[in-house]
């Protein structure tokens, strides 16, 4: 810009140095002022001449105030902070953009797999998509069938268990009834035998309820073997046993 090209090193000539200092100092102070006005920045400028004289400019009301602010700002580390922060923001922004791009990709795949947005796909791509879905349909169907078979097995097990329980209950019923009818109708023993397959519904039904009327002291308790227990103790205990069958 100036008439002569100036090399950036200490000006050897004392007078030139002095003159240059004065000129550039004024220019610098002016620039600082302009910067603070144009860009609404808080600017402070401190210049110590070679001989120790102080020249300063401050855009705010007091240099000390601006210096305080400078102090609070981490003493010159701000420069490093700013670039570190910027770098961080940049990388997280990049990460965000990557995520967004991934999202678009995934969304597109999903829609294709639903048979949507097939416009841009080439013949080959369509063919490969069709094949992928065909294969997956096989898997899905076999998984579905497996799930049905599992449910079936579960239900069968439940059926067996319930049938077993039913059989046991009926057996106990019969045995308990036989014991109690033995007590109340000694001759009924001849009518009802240890026939487990054949269930004499009506007879057992009627005789069944008789003991109920006669038992004032019914005790509910758990007996492991009603038949044995009944055999050991006569009388009210037989009611005890047959009631306990219901409650087991």
């Amino acid at each position, binding site marked *: 810009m100036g008439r002569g090209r100036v090399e950036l090193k200490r000006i050897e000539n004392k007078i030139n140095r002095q003159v240059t200092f004065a000129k550039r100092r004024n220019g610098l102070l002016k620039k600082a002022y302009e910067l603070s006005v144009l860009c609404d920045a808080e600017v402070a400028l401190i210049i110590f001449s070679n001989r120790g004289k102080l020249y300063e400019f401050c855009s705010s009301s007091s240099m000390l105030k601006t210096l305080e602010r400078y102090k609070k700002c981490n003493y010159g580390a701000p420069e490093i902070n700013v670039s570190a922060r910027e770098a961080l923001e940049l990388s*997280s922004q990049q*990460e*965000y953009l990557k*995520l*967004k791009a*991934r*999202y678009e990709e*995934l*969304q597109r*795949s*999903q829609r294709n*797999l*639903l*048979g949507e947005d*097939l416009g841009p*796909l*080439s*013949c080959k791509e*369509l*063919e490969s*998509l*069709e094949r*992928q*879905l*065909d*294969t*997956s*349909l*096989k*898997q*899905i*169907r076999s*998984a*579905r069938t497996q*799930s*049905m078979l599992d*449910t079936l097995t579960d239900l069968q097990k439940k059926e067996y268990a319930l049938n077993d329980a039913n059989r046991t209950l009926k057996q106990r019923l019969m045995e308990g009834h036989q014991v109690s009818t033995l007590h109340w109708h000694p001759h009924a023993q001849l009518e009802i035998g240890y026939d487990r397959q054949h269930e004499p519904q009506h007879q057992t039904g009627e005789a069944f309820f008789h003991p109920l009327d006669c038992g004032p002291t019914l005790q509910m308790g758990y007996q492991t073997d009603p038949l044995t227990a009944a055999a050991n103790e006569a009388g009210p205990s037989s009611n005890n046993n047959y009631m306990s069958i219901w409650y087991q």
Partner: protein
Amino acid sequence: MQEEMRQLKEVNKNLRRQIRQRLGDCLENLGFEQLLDLEKESQEAVYIIRERKLKVIGNKLETLKKKVINLGCT
């Protein structure tokens, strides 16, 4: 911004899982109803894709046929 990123990651994770299921993978924890739905969707999709594929190939064939005729062969 952090919240948005977290949500995006979550959405992406779900999409990946869904896509895997549609490709016949990771079907273990799906219930019977869900398997039925998935099968239905995939079946419909295959149908649409096949239709589109045949249409695209068909169009190409037509265009080429016309070109050949125009060129005076046959």
